[in-house]
């Protein structure tokens, strides 16, 4: 797993600085996209009444997810330690198969491209892709 260079970290921080104000929109889009494009992920939300993009639960949870990614951005210099609690949550309570981290990461990249078409250059893309892979890895730490 390639580690994040100083340049990667700066690139991710700079790009993430554009997100405030759009978290709910982005988060809801990422989540609802995942539920439509990868319907097998709906299994984790069987307790929700409404899985449509406009549902209150989707919007709220989208925001929660974005807050988690934001936390990862803030704790970029030590993701394993920084995301310990989130890893425990995903491993022991949510039991989300870590294969799904790739799926949500992909959808984050798609929504970034849609929301920031000019700014989401190949250079930003590569740093963000590496960062999300590193976040996924940190989230999987407590699984077994």
């Amino acid at each position, binding site marked *: 797993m390639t580690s994040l260079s100083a340049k990667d970290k700066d690139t991710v921080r700079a790009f993430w600085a554009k997100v405030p104000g759009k978290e709910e929109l982005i988060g809801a889009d990422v989540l*609802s996209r995942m539920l*439509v494009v990868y319907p097998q992920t709906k299994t984790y939300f069987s307790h929700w009444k409404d899985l449509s993009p406009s549902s209150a639960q989707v919007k709220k949870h989208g925001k929660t997810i974005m807050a988690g990614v934001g936390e990862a951005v803030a704790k970029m210099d030590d993701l394993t330690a920084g995301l310990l609690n989130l890893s425990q949550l995903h491993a022991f309570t949510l039991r989300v198969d870590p294969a799904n981290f790739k799926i949500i990461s992909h959808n984050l990249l*798609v929504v970034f491209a*849609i929301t920031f078409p000019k700014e*989401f250059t190949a*250079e930003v893309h590569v740093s963000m*892709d590496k960062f999300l892979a590193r976040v996924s890895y940190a989230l999987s730490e407590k699984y077994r």
Partner: protein
Amino acid sequence: MVEWTEQERSIITGIFANLSYEEIGPKALVRCLIVYPWTQRYFSSFGNLYNAEAIRGNPNVAAHGIKVLHGLDRAVKNMDNIKATYAELSVLHSEKLHVDPDNFRVSSAGLQQMHSAHLKADRLVSRRLTFPLFLHQLLADCLTIEIAAKLGTAFTADTQAAFQKFLAVVVSALGRQYH
């Protein structure tokens, strides 16, 4: 046999009908070479790929990106028989190019002639590579990102689902003849 709904057909043909191959093709390939630099291995004859600027300015990359989209075009026109459409290209890639099927899946009509004329056996043998399983997705993913950036909110979840399904079928068809 892949089943397509009317909505999926309409989405796929719609995307390609309104696509500028000259704009998106190069961008998708450039993005792939930058985001997944190991894919540059297959383009060592293209000249300068030393940095992002060089890749972006490389006319061989641009030309090849356009070819890639024209290659996809064949599948769009033959959505009910994508497997047969790519059968000869798949054989080409496995036997002449020794490209790992999971790395490089998209090509065009002229490729077969070009490659048999220009590539020598010893170079092909030395190019035999073993790459992890997901690489075939890489170019497809970069194309998805470029289409998303181009279409914006018009690239809805349903559009994304249809487009990704289409690319998955193409990639699978190109890998069929490998052994």
